[in-house]
């Protein structure tokens, strides 16, 4: 039985701030496309409605909206939710209210780690995956001394911590780190410290404007020319777009989605761009699309929109969608799929707008995310 006959999905994200290009209205579009595509493909009789709101990257604003959605607006599932602190708050709230949260936007691996719960599923990526993907590959290819520029807040610190562990595990060394206030406009002083450290790799444990500014200024101070390399631990396609290839070239990064992976992704991107004024989808937006499809599938299968039951069903059913391919949702709520290590193309190699990435290697699904054995999640029986 579907509560009040309608399956209501709330897309909660950053509509106007730092992450609005990565999530924002684009995620709403992605969710709509998912509903359309699902209904068309399955002839399902579900009535689906989508609402959206801006959480301004603040946990209080986010949980406030979510609470009202759940309490009075009959929202059944909340999707997207970038910004780890907000994601964690929504996850907890969804569990309290017996609803469902499928997160594509947040980075923190805690969502399926010590903060996991039965009503939360984490979709596109997480810090463990980023650290592991980028960190391991770089150390393996000789980048074994690191200097971290870490945004001084929970997300940055988590990313730094996870990456450091990977670097050390693979035989690398961390020669220094600096915690930069968030947000910072000018990184030159920090970059100079990184330069002085003579580390081969400067790991950018930050996001959004902090990342783009630090990459831009690194180029200005000739850091890359001087033989040091940057590792963008969380870089999205729109970031590269705003930097331009001239500056971003050579940057290594990990994502689980890129528009130019295969015919399916290209076809999706074409439709998405048409609806979004020419902007190409980010990994998060793709995640929203894929997660909504799987959610609806589970609702149909479970014949209910009860959060806890649908969550269980989502874990039970294998996933399959055009963007992330076949995969699974694990007991801890982690969606499993491959990840890709990319390198940003040189301007000469690019054939046009958004043709930015060169695939370096594919990390198979079973290696991309934190193994269940290491999980601190109480849902995982050991």
């Amino acid at each position: 039985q579907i509560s009040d006959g309608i399956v209501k999905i709330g897309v909660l994200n950053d509509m106007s701030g730092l992450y609005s290009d990565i999530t924002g209205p684009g995620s709403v579009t992605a969710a709509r496309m998912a509903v359309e595509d699902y209904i068309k493909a399955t002839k399902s009789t579900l009535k689906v409605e989508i609402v959206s709101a801006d959480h301004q990257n603040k946990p209080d604003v986010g949980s406030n909206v979510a609470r009202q959605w759940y309490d009075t607006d009959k929202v059944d599932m909340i999707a997207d939710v970038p910004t780890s602190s907000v994601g964690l708050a929504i996850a907890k709230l969804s569990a309290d209210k017996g609803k469902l949260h499928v997160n594509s936007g947040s980075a923190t691996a805690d969502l399926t780690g010590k903060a996991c719960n039965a009503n939360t599923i984490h979709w596109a990526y997480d810090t463990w995956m980023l650290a592991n993907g980028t960190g391991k590959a770089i150390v393996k290819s000789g980048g074994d001394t690191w200097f971290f520029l870490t945004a001084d807040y929970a997300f940055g610190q988590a990313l730094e911590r996870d990456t450091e562990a990977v670097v050390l595990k693979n035989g690398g060394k961390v020669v220094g780190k600096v915690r930069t206030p968030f947000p910072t406009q000018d990184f030159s002083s920090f970059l100079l410290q990184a330069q002085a450290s003579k580390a081969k790799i400067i790991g950018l444990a930050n996001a959004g404007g902090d990342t783009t500014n630090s990459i831009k200024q690194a180029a200005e101070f000739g850091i890359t020319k001087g033989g040091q390399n940057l590792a963008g631990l969380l870089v999205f396609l729109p970031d590269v777009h705003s930097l331009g290839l001239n500056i971003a070239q050579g940057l290594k990064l990990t994502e689980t989605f890129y528009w130019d992976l295969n015919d399916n992704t290209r076809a999706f991107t074409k439709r998405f761009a048409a609806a979004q004024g020419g902007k190409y989808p980010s990994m998060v937006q793709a995640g929203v699309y894929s997660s909504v499809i799987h959610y609806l599938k589970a609702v149909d299968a479970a014949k209910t929109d009860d959060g806890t039951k649908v969550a269980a069903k989502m874990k039970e059913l294998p996933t399959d969608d055009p963007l992330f391919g076949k995969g699974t949702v694990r007991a801890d709520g982690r969606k499993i799929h491959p990840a890709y290590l990319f390198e940003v193309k040189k301007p000469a190699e690019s054939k046009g707008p958004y043709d930015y990435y060169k695939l370096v290697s594919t990390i198979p699904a079973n290696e991309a995310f934190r193994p269940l054995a290491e999980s601190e999640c109480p849902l995982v029986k050991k």
Partner: protein
Amino acid sequence: MTTVPTPSIKAQSFTHQWVAFAIMVLVLAIAPIWVYPIFLMKVMCFALFACAFNLLIGFGGLLSFGHAMFLGTAGYAAAHAAKVWGWNPELAVLFATGCSALLALVTGMLAIRRQGIYFAMITLAFSQMVYFFYLQTPFTGGEDGIQSVPRGMLFGLFDLNDNTAMYMFVLAIFLAGFALIWRIIYSPFGQILKAIRENQDRAISLGYDTDMFKLIAFVISGALAGTAGATKSLVFQLASLTDVHWSMSGEVVLMTLLGGLGTLFGPVLGAAVIVSMQNYLAQFGAWVTIIQGVIFVVCVLAFRRGIIGEIANWIKKPL
């Protein structure tokens, strides 16, 4: 001799204020039937915050641009007391109010010695330092804040997880705070405060230790802002950096200004309008800020007295 008007002592009547107060209580008592109670609780928390702020600027002439530090400090203190120490909600709120009062005492002693824009700036500076402290110190959970704060049992008897009980609790706190401010404004102390605002040098020369008066006003205002913050963190079961950020200090100015600076009921209405706006315009993203900006501009250019201020001016009685 020129003739002068010979008025009798104006019998200052305050009945209209009582009427307004009764209307406010009535509205708040029955509104939850139609309106989402948590939203109303949020309104009341911000209304108390704005009233506390207004006590300082509207009646003491002191523009604090760092009032968020009291809201936020108490929010963290209450959340910590309730979550980590497992205190009852009433104790948590009291403790948190005390923390804010203490912070107000310390910062006030330094800030109060400056006037006008320097006062605004020094309070801003303090709040930035407080912000930094909460950002760095582990107990606040940094960006994540203190989440899942238990609402607990009021006096060990009433379960506040029930929204109705929580609502009554918040309503009681709000009304008590409001009544206290009302009393202060029309007290011997309030009278001197007004005199200081009008002409500080003259008040000094009449033997008043003006710094003392301003400090007391500052501490009361900070403490009540703290009560609001503590209550808010129980309602939302969350204490976060938002409440300490300088933009929160700006928001309370907006509420007060919109409602009517130096009026009794203005901050309440201002808070209600701004909170509703943020609530109902949430899906419009950037438009929220644009509309807020427009309100600021319109208020300053055309509505300087604020909504309640305009009404009060119209009926020629203080509200």
